[in-house]
């Protein structure tokens, strides 16, 4: 039972790293980027390629996944995302779905439709037991990395100058602009960071979630739940949302396997019923 909790935490951690970038970009530009998962997939494939073709070790492929996704994030933000900010939510949704479709088909074309795999180094394989709780080494590794990331992100968000500017911009972009905060550049940086984190999450998640060209579609709803439930004004919100989601998903499947994925969707709709306006709302008067 406790092992399951541990698994759920690991799962939630990966979801957090995957989704937190989305929540910040959504909060900052009020932009619905359904293509966020495509960046995660990109990171995953970069990691796979780095290991298979270049023969890099697993640990070295992780930063590469981050950098590649971040880089593509910067370029795309400049070229195609920027004109989208002023458009309606509907347009944004259509646009990002289009990107997802392109990413899915393009990846299929380049990489084939089969599942991709990585070989973990030996020290990350297998498991050990502490007080009767089976602990997977890899999951522990994931929790450690993601935990560190979460803490440093939280620190960066609340304690640094960048963070305070970011928070000001999320709160009210117009006022922030008036105060001389370069919101556009701030956003570009955040977008890159968020994409990069998604890429890293994608690479970390290969072992837990699998990786194939349909990844962005399969996990889109998970990211959206993280953002929806967690809100967009902090790091802690999405963090707890991701934990909740990871635990609910894993526990639900463990306890009532026949209901499968039903549980998390029901959870989401219930949350929406309870706080329909709480979504994306940032305590406006």
């Amino acid at each position, binding site marked *: 039972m406790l092992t399951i909790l541990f*698994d759920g935490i690991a799962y939630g951690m990966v979801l957090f790293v995957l989704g937190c970038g989305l929540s910040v970009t959504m909060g900052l530009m009020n932009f619905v980027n359904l293509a966020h998962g495509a960046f995660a997939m990109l990171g995953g494939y970069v990691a796979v390629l780095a290991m298979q073709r270049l023969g890099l070790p697993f640990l070295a492929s992780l930063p590469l996944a981050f950098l590649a996704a971040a880089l593509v994030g910067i370029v795309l933000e400049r070229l195609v995302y920027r004109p989208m900010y002023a458009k309606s939510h509907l347009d944004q949704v259509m646009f990002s779905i289009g990107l997802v479709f392109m990413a899915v088909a393009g990846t*299929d074309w380049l990489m*084939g439709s089969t599942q991709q795999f990585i070989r973990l180094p030996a020290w990350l394989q297998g498991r050990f037991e502490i007080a009767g709780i089976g602990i*997977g080494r890899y999951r522990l590794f994931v929790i450690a990395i993601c935990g560190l990331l979460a803490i440093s992100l939280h620190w960066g968000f609340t304690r640094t100058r960048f963070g305070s500017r970011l928070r000001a911009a999320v709160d009210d972009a117009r006022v922030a602009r008036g105060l001389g905060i370069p919101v556009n550049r701030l956003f570009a940086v955040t977008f890159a960071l968020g994409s990069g984190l998604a890429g890293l999450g994608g690479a970390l998640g290969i072992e837990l979630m699998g990786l194939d060209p349909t990844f962005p579609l399969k996990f889109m709803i998970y990211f959206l739940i993280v953002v929806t439930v967690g809100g967009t004004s902090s790091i802690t919100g999405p963090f707890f949302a991701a934990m909740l989601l990871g635990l609910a998903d*894993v526990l639900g499947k463990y306890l009532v396997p026949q209901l499968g994925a039903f549980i998390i969707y029901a959870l989401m709709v219930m949350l929406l019923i309870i706080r329909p306006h709480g979504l994306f709302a940032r305590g406006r008067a």
Partner: protein
Amino acid sequence: MTHRRMVLTGILGVALAASADGAALAQEAVKIGLVLPMTGPFASTGRQIDAAVKLFLAREGAVHGGRKLEVILKDDAGNADATRRLAQELVVNDKVSVLAGFGLTPLAMATAQIATQAKVPEVVMAAATASITEASPYIVRTSFTLPQASEPMADWAWANGIKKVFTVVTDYGPGIDAETSFAGKFKAAGGSVESVRVPLRNPDFAPFLQRVSEAKPDALFVFVPSGVGAQFMKQFVERGLDKAGIKLIGPGDVVDDDILEGIGEVALGAITTHHYSAAHDSPANKAFVADFQKANPGMRPNFMAVGGYDGMRLVAEALKATKGDASGEKLIAAMKGASWESPRGPVRIDPETRDIIQNVYVRKTQKVGSELHNVEFATIPNVKDPVKARK
């Protein structure tokens, strides 16, 4: 005429046709409508079969029974509505004499009515739920049925000292088939079985495997669609279930040849029962595998490929028997009871059920040279689909 939908014609034997006898040239080609998932999550099935069909035409020529075979390939992306419409269009507009392909059970089932209505044989090359051939008198199968592959596993497991089994199957037709047939047979032998079903769209097996680990069975019987096997195997090992002494058994889908290298060494030691392994030790198979890999570098033929290859063979044999008469009733009559030597071993179409009768092999996943293979070590000859055999 359908200029609208330019078709991907899979003819490789154009050159061969030139050297064929004059009668064949005079007669119209026999069109085979091949409907496969070439995109989407099951695209690997489609690509294997497509490659095998092309290989058949290249190796055996396009002319059989005095008629030229012309393959029209359509992509249904694994979507049953599309399969049905494409099949219907193939029958109505392209006037195909045979429908073939069908990567998944729902896709084959959705087309059954069309086969019946149009009196066109439907050659199922992949889908493996037992009941498919009962959906229409025009359905013939050259793949396998899951009960066919699963029941021998129950016998082997019981005979090898396994008493308690936990089954994990994907929650759709084939999975349920595998679970019920295995559990039925194993329980009848005296074993005990616990079961969970995993939703088709399920990324994380951890919670299900955790249940398995707590139940401490002697063996874990698993069926998942072929692409998903790798993830399952990895988590199985990561969870330490192999070290806990739990054997991994099941029909061969989980250690699919196509992805076995990707699964890696975690697959070592899995015991599976299946009708085909690329490592099957026969001259026919060695040649088949070699030619396949020459035509498709980097791809290893799996049980889907052999199903596609034999599907073409079946059509060719039937045409030979009817002397080129491609009317549906004649063809289906000729297909019943047809037998030939396949890369997988001797096979025969059961005249009563139109399902395939074939050997089922017990295999162990091992290293052969530098590659991973499912090495066969026991053979159960001439297995009929047990579900229909009992009726």
